[in-house]
């Protein structure tokens, strides 16, 4: 083979790196984008309804997350069946990620119910912060920084809203910055990471 110049070698290595990043992004993005859009939409709907009909807040948050979990599982199974990339290791990872989220959700719900609070907003704030800690840890674990970034931004927005806004307006704030904080990156991932 004809010897390569340093520029050609550098170009080839840059191309390898670019394709590797593209592949990782496309793989991570296909399912992640769907989940972010789904949960962003659920939060926007849930918090908006909680703002419009505050007396139904408890019932809204009993129903919507349940629907979200069912939809997430259905989308996950559908995605796995399409089988664009099949791998035993990826299958095992999917099981570990599912277990991780199950534990995070149980922690969030149990702590949300058990820890003393003055208002329902305190409970929602605690649950959202624990779920967002899940995003931060997932981002570190799966090496997808955008997840950690989303987790941090939504946590900060939640704490700001909880600290400075009356409970009813907190719901509206969370529809925009909580739901939007998931939905907008979901849209970005879906459109750009493919």
């Amino acid at each position: 083979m004809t010897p390569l110049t340093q520029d050609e070698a550098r170009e080839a290595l840059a191309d390898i790196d670019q394709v590797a990043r593209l592949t990782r992004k496309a793989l991570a993005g296909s399912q992640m984008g769907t989940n972010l859009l789904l949960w962003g939409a659920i939060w926007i709907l849930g918090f908006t309804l909680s703002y419009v009909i505050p007396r139904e807040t408890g019932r809204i948050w009993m129903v919507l997350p349940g629907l979200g979990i069912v939809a997430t599982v259905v989308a996950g199974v559908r995605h796995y069946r399409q089988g664009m990339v099949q791998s035993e290791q990826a299958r095992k990872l999917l099981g570990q990620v599912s277990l991780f989220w199950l534990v995070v959700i149980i922690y969030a719900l149990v702590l949300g119910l058990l820890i003393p609070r003055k208002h329902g907003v305190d409970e929602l704030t605690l649950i959202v912060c624990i779920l967002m800690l899940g995003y931060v840890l997932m981002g570190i674990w799966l090496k997808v920084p955008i997840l950690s970034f989303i987790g941090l931004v939504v946590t900060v927005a939640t704490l700001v809203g909880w600290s400075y806004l009356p409970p009813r307006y907190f719901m509206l704030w969370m529809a925009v910055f909580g739901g939007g904080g998931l939905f907008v990156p979901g849209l970005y991932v879906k459109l750009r990471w493919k």
Partner: protein
Amino acid sequence: MAELNEIIHQTVRLRIVSSLAVLDADARVDFTYLKNLLKLSDGNLGAHLLKLEEAGYLVQDKTFVDRKPRTYLHLTAEGRTAFQQHVAALKEILGGGESG
């Protein structure tokens, strides 16, 4: 000293192997998925896959999923090693330049 691999170094094949090498060792990738990811035509991807298959670097599994034909691609251990050696050779070219 690692050597450059003429089969892998061709631009399209380098992109194909780079994409497959980043996945788990046991991973199989759908033909259409890879075609769309690398923005290649059926014919172009098919021709380069054949070259890689002839070299023993890649295996194509033709199967049926929900009664539809599907082709899955899998980088062999030999292909993975050849790719790693090629990358090492590229880095040596740069490393040699930086020290000299």
